[in-house]
């Protein structure tokens, strides 16, 4: 447990010392989602309709921007070897790195979503559903992304390959995340969407840290 907190603390500290990389991804999210209302104009009915999809797709892409940082820097300076050789289980350390990534790249999206939503003329009910779906969905994005980040370690042009590997896996999260907001806006029940998002999150939590830890060990060998 102490090691888990230590690795989260370490990764957050490293981000604080080099803020530009993270701010780029967040700025990307804000800019892309702001371009749509500007481009489409003041057709509020249309904006309200496309809002969930646009915000969710922007969230996927901005998560992807920060993913390569998860293991690549540690791989290059040899710290990843030291983590594998430390007297901690690699699964725990990988889980710590995923949590740190979510705090930096996922949580801000949840907090920014209401501000972005206002540009799309979403009402309070839709905004809260949007935040709740992002809260359940963004951890899944970080978890699944860690597999891609670990598998493409040391591969030239790895970030393009990672996008190809990971984006298809994000599709269920996108469908149920955006679907919940849309269902809420037309007055349908959203509990099914939330149950499925929760199930995906639990499934990912149960398997992904082991898969990513194995992928990291293969990359180091």
């Amino acid at each position: 447990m102490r090691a888990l907190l230590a690795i989260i603390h370490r990764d957050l500290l490293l981000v604080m010392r080099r803020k530009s990389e993270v701010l780029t991804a967040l700025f990307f999210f804000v800019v892309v989602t702001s371009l749509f209302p500007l481009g489409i104009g003041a057709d509020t009915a249309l904006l309200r309709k496309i809002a969930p999809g646009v915000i969710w797709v922007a969230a996927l892409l901005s998560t992807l921007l920060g993913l390569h940082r998860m293991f690549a820097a540690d791989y290059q300076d040899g710290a990843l070897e030291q983590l594998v050789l430390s007297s901690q289980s690699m699964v725990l350390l990988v889980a710590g790195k995923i949590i740190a990534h979510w705090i930096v790249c996922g949580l801000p999206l949840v907090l920014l979503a209401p501000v972005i939503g206002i540009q799309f003329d979403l009402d309070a009910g839709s905004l809260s559903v949007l935040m709740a779906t992002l809260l359940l969905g963004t951890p899944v994005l970080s978890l699944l992304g860690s597999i891609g980040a670990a598998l493409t370690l040391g591969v030239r042009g790895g970030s393009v390959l990672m996008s190809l590997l990971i984006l298809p896996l994000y599709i269920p999260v996108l469908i149920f995340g955006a679907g919940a907001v849309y269902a809420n806006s037309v007055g349908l029940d959203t509990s099914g969407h939330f149950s499925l998002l929760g199930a995906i999150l639990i499934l990912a939590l149960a398997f992904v840290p082991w898969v990513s830890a194995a992928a990291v060990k293969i990359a180091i060998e």
Partner: protein
Amino acid sequence: MTVNLSTISSNPALVLEANGLCCVRGERELFSGLNLRISTGNCLHVRGENGVGKTSLLRLLTGLSKPESGEVLWGNQSITLDPIAYHHELLFLGHRDALKEDLTALENIQMYAVLDDVALPQEKALAALWRFGLRGRENLPVNCLSAGQKRRVLMARMLTRQAKLWILDEPFNALDTQAVQELQNLIAEHLSFGGLVVLTSHQEVSIPNMQVLEL
């Protein structure tokens, strides 16, 4: 190729042994049928030309990579059986310094202490850094240090790590003559406390109880 390095040991558990190691990189077989045995208080100096497989051998001994055939034993038990227990006793320093450039020397040392499950109060960490001439630089980010000073941070880590087995890849690189002497003293000290050391170096090193393995 066989090296047998044993003095009479009070603790039979502290033996690093390799049986019939074979290492293949790509299409090339680097070495095969390599046996070695190092016991408490002894140092093994692996020598050979560039590309002959020194680093590969060290990585096999740490368990980072798996041999094509053969096995590595720590205390008569294969290192793949309980890797976490083995890693607790092992300190491996590779080519790359594994220090986070944006963290200070002190933060790096303390972070590794937590990950390695070693209790390290701040005074002890500072004392270790000061011993290797980093007084006044302990709170500088590591990217402000020179290559030699980074190696000195690693020496402080070796001192505080409390590992039995040190596997060091080119530990004398980038060090000035005084630091080379200090590192040799540190290794000799470790051996005298019953530690084991495997190292590679192209320089002449004078360390007690040292045997040479030519690859």
